[in-house]
């Protein structure tokens, strides 16, 4: 133990005059009586006074002396422990996992209680600051000695939807000499998503429990080229045994259930599943687990299904009529492509020409062009081979179903992205090229010879080519992870969060509130779903469960207890004094 203000211990010297005053003043009043014998007879009938009664004066002096010593010690600021670091940074993990409800309350509430204990244990000269960590490190109070301000800051802490990233604390504990030597950093966290080794200088104050959780760690909803909608989801469980659940898919409102999907969730992260819907309206969708558990934030995913946007295609061909009619035919039967009007179009469909448009799909390459180096003879039988099966152009296509009739020997320009090639000759059959700010996908086949124009793969290839060249394969996911930066592209006027609050500017926004947002564009309003979708938050076991809290004073400081003791002693002495005076 050491003392912050040892000079106050000299206050104990007040004992000397106290004893003197006590001995001089504490004398009973003298009162004359005419019947002392009666008093004597009364007192002899009673029990002989106890030791306490006889020594009552001495007890009073003892209580007063102890009270003086306790006050002197309290003023001296006693401290347990030898840590000389005076200032404290208390970082409270406010990531999504801290919302987990355990038997003894929410983790965030227990973390706040732990923080309050630490604040109360501060001595009068010790400073502390409070910060929260969920994605970013936010200081909710400055470095101060005021316990009231610190406790008020702790009261304002709310759990968020971000991740706990301890790397954010690096700059605090880096060898920026003064900090590590002067300040002690305590991270009050459940340890989910924390590395085994925290950055040097950060001490973990673990918030542990055995809460079990089943949650959605991934979800997406997209329209397929064939008109169906694919629902993609992935579940995770921290239970020790498989659990049965039911996923509820609802549209527009939570009550508008469209599908019930029974699932068996195995312990750990389960493989992703895809569920297809024949028809699905655009707008807001809800994917929810039927049963709540300790961690509710991952029980629901907020999805948004955008309306189909056909790709406007412009024809640039020597004989454009037939090609145009094919496009129009597919336009009437589907919503993948449409014939562009007034010469505008996201994609130019070229046949027998060398297009100069920014984005072009060139069928049956011939002649000289910047898009190929040489054209040779027609190939015979072609066996397509995909160097990269995950290429976006092959997402909805089966290479074996593409009729590469009329493919010719050619060499793709250097740097071309080969999607399909002949397995024997290596001649590129389908590739992407970038030149001088323009892009083109070259399809090495004769569309008439193979009746490719009439194939259902034709509009799919055109659509996917347009998306690839425009950048739509990076189209917004059906649900956006909370806390991740939002990229909405151009033409967004503003965003509304689930409560209707307008959010401006949109660029660089990291939405944290879960729910459906409204994206206001010039052309209309569309839904945007923001969900937790965090593997680490849903599956992270409370880390440091075997770790012990660091040694630090908690609760009320020793001086507070000494003051209370002194008050109790003075109350005792007051009682004895009252007894002496009033009987």
């Amino acid at each position, binding site marked *: 133990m050491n003392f912050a203000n040892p000079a106050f211990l000299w206050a104990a010297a007040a004992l000397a005059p106290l004893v003197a005053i006590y001995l001089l003043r504490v004398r009973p009043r003298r*009162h004359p009586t005419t*019947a*002392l014998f009666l*008093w004597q007879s*009364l007192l002899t009938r009673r029990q002989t006074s106890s030791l306490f009664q006889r020594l009552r004066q001495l007890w009073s002096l003892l209580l007063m002396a102890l009270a003086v010593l306790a006050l002197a010690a309290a003023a001296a600021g006693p401290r347990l422990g030898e840590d000389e670091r005076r200032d404290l940074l208390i970082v409270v993990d406010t990531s999504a996992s801290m919302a987990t409800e355990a038997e003894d309350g929410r983790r965030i509430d227990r973390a706040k209680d732990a923080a309050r204990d630490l604040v109360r244990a501060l001595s009068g000269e010790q400073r502390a600051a409070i910060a929260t960590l969920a994605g970013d490190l936010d200081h909710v109070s400055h470095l101060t000695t005021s316990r009231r301000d610190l406790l008020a800051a702790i009261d304002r802490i709310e759990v968020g939807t971000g991740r706990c990233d301890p790397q954010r604390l690096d700059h605090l504990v880096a060898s920026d000499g003064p900090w590590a030597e002067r300040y002690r950093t305590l991270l009050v966290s459940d340890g989910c998503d924390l590395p085994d080794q925290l950055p040097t200088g950060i001490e973990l104050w673990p918030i542990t429990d055995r809460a079990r959780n089943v949650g959605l760690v991934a979800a997406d909803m997209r329209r397929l080229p064939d008109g169906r909608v694919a629902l993609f989801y992935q579940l995770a469980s921290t239970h020790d045994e498989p659990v049965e659940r039911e996923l509820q898919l609802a549209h527009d409102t939570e009550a508008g259930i469209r599908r019930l999907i029974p699932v068996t969730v195995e312990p750990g992260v389960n493989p992703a599943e895809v569920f297809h819907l024949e028809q699905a309206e655009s707008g807001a969708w809800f994917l929810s687990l039927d049963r709540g558990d300790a961690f509710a934030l991952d029980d629901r995913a907020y999805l948004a299904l955008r309306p189909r946007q056909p790709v406007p295609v412009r024809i640039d061909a020597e004989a454009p009529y037939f090609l145009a009619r094919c496009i129009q035919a597919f336009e009437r039967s589907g919503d993948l492509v449409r014939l562009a009007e007034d010469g505008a179009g996201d994609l130019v469909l070229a046949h027998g020409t060398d297009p100069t448009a920014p984005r072009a799909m060139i069928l049956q390459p011939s002649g000289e062009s910047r898009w190929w180096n040489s054209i040779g003879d027609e190939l015979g039988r072609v066996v397509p081979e995909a160097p990269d099966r995950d290429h976006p152009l092959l997402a909805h296509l089966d290479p074996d179903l593409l009729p590469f009739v009329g493919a010719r020997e050619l060499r793709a320009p250097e740097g071309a992205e080969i999607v399909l090639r002949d397995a024997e000759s290596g001649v590129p059959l389908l590739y992407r090229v970038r030149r001088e700010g323009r892009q083109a996908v070259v399809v090495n086949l004769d569309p008439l010879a193979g009746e490719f124009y009439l194939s259902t793969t034709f509009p799919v290839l055109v659509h996917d080519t347009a998306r690839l060249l425009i950048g739509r394969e990076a189209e917004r996911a059906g649900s956006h992870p909370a806390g991740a930066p939002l990229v909405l592209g151009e033409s967004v006027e503003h965003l509304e969060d689930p409560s209707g609050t307008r959010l401006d500017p949109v660029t660089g926004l990291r939405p944290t509130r879960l729910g459906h947002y409204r994206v206001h564009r010039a052309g209309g309003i569309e839904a945007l779903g923001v969900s937790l979708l965090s593997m680490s938050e849903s599956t992270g076991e409370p880390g440091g469960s075997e770790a012990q809290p660091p040694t630090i004073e908690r609760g009320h400081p020793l001086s507070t207890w000494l003051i209370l003791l002194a008050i109790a002693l003075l109350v005792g002495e007051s009682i004895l004094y009252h007894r002496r*005076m009033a*009987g």
Partner: protein
Amino acid sequence: MLTDPAFIRRLESLHLLARKVLGGTLQSDRKSVRKGAGITFADHSEYSPGDDYRAIDWQVYARFEQLVIKLFEVEEDLSLYLLIDASPSMTGKWQWAREVAAALGYIALHNNDRVVLDCFADEVRRVMEPAHGRGKVFPLLRTLEDAATFGRDTDLGTAARAFQVRARKRGLVVLISDFLFPDGAEAAFKLLRWHGHEVFAIQVQDERDRECDLRGDCELDCVESGRRLKVTVTPELAERYRLSVLELNEQLRRSAARRGVGLIGCTSDQPFDEVVRRILRRGGLVA
């Protein structure tokens, strides 16, 4: 002051009341059992040479030819012994005691009774020798005025014995005291009654004798013995003291009843003349 004219007027009014109520005397059995030259026939006795021949009952001689003399009752003077407790415990009641004694002595002297004034504490002091007549009123009052408390511990029994040594004649003994004696008053009553005195006790106490308003730690200082006692007075203990005083007074009453002693209890805040009037209206100082 006891010689104050106003005080004396009060005494006079008491005397007048006494005359009216008791016929001018402090009623007592003044008939002596001794035979003498009175007017009330009491008995016959055989004539012996030297007896007063005028007392010979000639009618008896005529009948029985035997010389006998008549014996007559002698009405003696009342001896009023005022025995006042002058111990330190009477300090607060001393003035009152003297006023009562003055009143009784005044009445007795005006009726030509014999008054003796003694004060007792740890000894008996004859403050005034037997006195007769109105001429002794002022000396009595001055003597009472000059009298003071004295002594330390008081033992009523010892005082009674000492008193009896000097009190040759039977009379009416008026005891004025607070009667706060550890051994009680029965022995004294018994002694005085044995010696043929009529005894009347006037018990005077004040609030401080009967009640205890102290609380907490205090040191009780006995006004007579000087002994001290440390005590913590609680409400409970104060109540028990009060009950003890009541019990002590009850014992005094029973002792007085047993011994045929008249008793009147009063407090020093009651005017002395009111007390004397009570006595007189009761018919005097008789049990």
